[in-house]
């Protein structure tokens, strides 16, 4: 049994312990212990019934823990040693766990960490490595998050919007440590869609698949970013694109548009163009109009201005850009790009250099620095 199959069992096992009467936080701790042991012993000695093994080991851990606590307080053991009679229930609490882990009271980083551990079945160590913090810090972050949602009942629907935001944050983290977080986010969104068949869940899954399809072409082997227009389109994963488009079409047909569907529609139009100059920018601008209507965020305004620049020429794009707050990330990068296309190389080079100084990631800073250098070279020649 490989690790990802093992991970898939985790939320259900937590659900069983909660059903047997454990509180969420203790159940989750016990299952994490069982998971770490499984990762350690299963390669040598795989169980016949993996889920049964996890339930047994986790339940024993939970009882040990509960007994330890009650005896410390000098009271009777409150929890029955034997699990309730009858078969393990068929109901699945996994959806409830998604809601719990993305509870609106949690900070984004806590919700991400909790989701990866509880629903994703990752170990604390794996999450800590992926987010480049010490394991002790990540353990504390998760345990605080659990404490703060421990009283939340699992039998009521939560906020799907926050769940989607958390999954998209995980997806955006990409690949770090030994876990492919983008692939993990796709797996979790796929699983969510199977339990909550909503157009926006489908929209997010489609968006992720369409982005993921271009991953191999987005960076060179040395880590350099490759802009969309320069990507080798033969390296785009056509299977993922086809799946993303099909899922999107199904969602759009239900006529309940949301921001993820609109973003996926834009990604689909990019994926649909065999060459950069065949991109249907007019339709992309229309989708940005929809997106603005849905969200009115400065980032969307910025992206829309760039699309207008492609559809109607750089001057039109710059006119749109004028209404975008200059402190929005990438505002200067967009201005640099549009000014270069408008022929003002001096200003473009200067803006690229400023954009590089304002960049928030290392690959982006290096990319923008190279762009500034490229435009300055054009100026000299």
């Amino acid at each position, binding site marked *: 049994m490989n690790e990802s199959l093992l991970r898939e069992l985790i939320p259900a096992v937590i659900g069983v312990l909660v059903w047997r009467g454990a509180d969420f936080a203790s159940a989750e701790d016990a299952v994490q212990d069982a998971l770490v042991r499984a990762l350690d012993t299963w390669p040598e000695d795989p169980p016949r019934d993996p889920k049964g093994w996890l339930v047994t080991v986790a339940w024993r851990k939970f009882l040990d823990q509960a007994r330890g606590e009650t005896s410390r307080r000098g009271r009777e053991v409150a929890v029955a040693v034997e699990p309730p009679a009858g078969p393990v229930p068929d109901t699945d609490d996994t959806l409830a766990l998604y809601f719990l882990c993305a509870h609106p009271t949690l900070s984004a980083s806590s919700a991400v960490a909790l989701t990866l551990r509880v629903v994703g079945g990752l170990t604390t160590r794996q999450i800590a490595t992926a987010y480049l913090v010490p394991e002790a810090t990540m353990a*504390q972050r998760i345990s605080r998050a659990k404490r703060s949602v421990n009283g939340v009942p699992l039998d009521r629907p939560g906020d799907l919007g926050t769940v989607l935001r958390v999954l998209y944050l995980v997806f*955006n983290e990409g690949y*770090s440590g030994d876990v492919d977080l983008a692939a993990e986010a796709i797996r979790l969104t796929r699983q969510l869609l199977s339990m909550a068949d909503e157009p926006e869940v489908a929209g997010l899954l489609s968006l992720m698949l369409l982005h993921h399809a271009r991953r191999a072409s987005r960076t060179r082997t040395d880590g350099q*970013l490759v802009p969309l227009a320069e990507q080798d389109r033969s390296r785009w994963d056509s299977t993922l694109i086809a799946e993303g488009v099909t899922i999107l079409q199904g969602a759009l047909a239900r006529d309940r548009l949301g921001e993820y569907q609109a973003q996926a529609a834009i990604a689909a139009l990019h994926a649909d163009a065999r060459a950069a100059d065949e991109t249907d920018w007019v339709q992309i601008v229309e989708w940005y109009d929809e997106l603005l209507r849905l969200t009115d965020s400065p980032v969307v305004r910025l992206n829309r201005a760039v699309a207008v620049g492609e559809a109607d020429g750089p001057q039109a794009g710059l006119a749109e850009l004028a209404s975008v707050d200059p402190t929005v990330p*990438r505002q200067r990068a967009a201005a640099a790009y549009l000014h270069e296309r408008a022929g003002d190389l001096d200003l473009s080079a200067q803006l690229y250099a400023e954009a590089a100084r304002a960049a928030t*990631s*290392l690959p982006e800073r290096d990319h923008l620095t190279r762009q500034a250098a490229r435009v300055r070279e054009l100026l000299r020649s």
Partner: protein
Amino acid sequence: MKYLMLKHYRGGPTPAVPFAPMDQWTPEEIDAHITYMNDFAKRLQETGEFVDSQALKPEGTFVRSDGQGRPPVTDGPFAETKDLIAGWMIIDVESWDRAVELAGELSAAPGPRGEPLHEWLEVRPFLTAHSKFTE
């Protein structure tokens, strides 16, 4: 988001409250200062915001290459460089505001007579290793 809180021995804006170097404090004042710093780091560990903390010795040497096949050239140590870094703490927090709030707390570590130092700390955001989608 990760931030570096950088502590300078020298450099930075004019001190709000001038104070004597630590070796001229009383042992109790030094203990109180160190306890405050340790407690601060411990508290950040408990909130899940601590990443790393390191202190540096003040003396350093400048090193540069001197061409292939030749040993590196060293210069210094210099007793009086303009800026001198004492150490740092790295935090992983939800926002810039939280980073500023924490730096403010760290800056209030007690000094002589147990008074808060109000020393200047430099807060610098890390560049992330990944770029979010731009398209």
